[in-house]
């Protein structure tokens, strides 16, 4: 088990020359977000809602920059119609999604969108790959970035709750 999998994501983003990181924070991404903020070659943009990032990263691509969108699975629901943009415009949009409502969830409010995350993304034309162990993270993130930038489409890596650990609200 590699507990440093968020660092593996950061290193993969660097290999792919990612310079724009749009996000709505999630605890599962906290360590990766800290690494990105500490990197002067990355522009980190905190959004008010995830769909802003879908539109923003189309603009980034139009200007020749490569970006990634970080969010929690609930944020996927906020993106649905905006995902028409990268489909229509044949634009790369890699998304790294930390899962809730997936495996050992405590909060019932997280389950409906967590359960719908993959089907909702796929219904909007996004290619989805999953990582449920630390060893899968780097190859899955790398694959999702390659699929996005080599084939011009929205792609998503779902980082499962078995990987990030379920939030227990003190009820361990």
């Amino acid at each position, binding site marked *: 088990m590699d507990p440093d999998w968020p660092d593996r994501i950061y290193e993969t983003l660097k290999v792919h020359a990612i310079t724009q990181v749009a996000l709505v924070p999630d605890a599962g991404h906290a360590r990766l977000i800290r690494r990105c903020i500490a990197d002067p070659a990355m522009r980190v943009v905190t959004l008010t809602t995830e769909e*802003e990032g879908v539109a923003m990263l189309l603009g980034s691509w139009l200007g020749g920059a490569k970006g990634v969108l970080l969010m929690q699975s609930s944020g996927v629901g906020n993106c649905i119609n905006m995902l028409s943009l990268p489909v229509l415009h044949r634009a790369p949009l890699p998304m790294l999604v930390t899962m809730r409502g997936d495996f050992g969830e405590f909060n019932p409010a997280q389950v409906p969108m967590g359960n719908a995350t993959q089907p909702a993304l796929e219904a909007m034309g996004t290619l989805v790959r999953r990582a449920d162990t630390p060893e899968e993270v780097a190859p899955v993130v790398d694959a999702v970035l390659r699929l996005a930038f080599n084939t011009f489409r929205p792609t998503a890596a779902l980082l499962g709750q078995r990987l990030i650990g379920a939030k227990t609200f003190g009820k361990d």
Partner: protein
Amino acid sequence: MATLDRRDVVRELLRDRGELLVVAGLGASAWDITAAGDVAQNFPLWGGMGGAAMLGLGLVLAQPARRVLVITGDGEMLMGLGALCTIAVQKPANLAVVVLDNEHYSETGGQETATRHGVDLAAIARGAGIADARQVTEAAGVAALRQDIHASAAPLFAVVKVAAGNHPLVLPPREGAYLTARFREAVLGPAAHHQL
């Protein structure tokens, strides 16, 4: 009652535009920029309602040396108000967002928007932290706005009050892949098609 004509406003804003890159929100704004001249430096949207200003932000962050103008409608801006907060925090010096505010959803039958009932988009932008957030109601203000779009040192937000009512449709190309490739080549040159 607003008297400015939206086509006149856009034609003036885009006069002698030089290297200015222009993004238009879906609907009448996209028809307006196309009526002023369908050029490769235009990116008219056919969908993604609420996303025009954020698309502009991504573009200016990628191209800090280029001026970018987002032209959109009041209905489109109302759907993505959070973008004003996000843009204000990022403080891009080379981004201007102009809302052509006719106080109606003109593409869907002319239903009233919230601005018809007193919602002040310039005040919202100012509250978000965009210091230069103005409302324009006459031609002299449009001419000054055009100059500032090319010269501002901070994000610029303007609401231009325009008359309601539809103009003849002047449609841009609607193949999204074409619009993307055309625009990227205009910004990045032929290398755009080989970016890895």
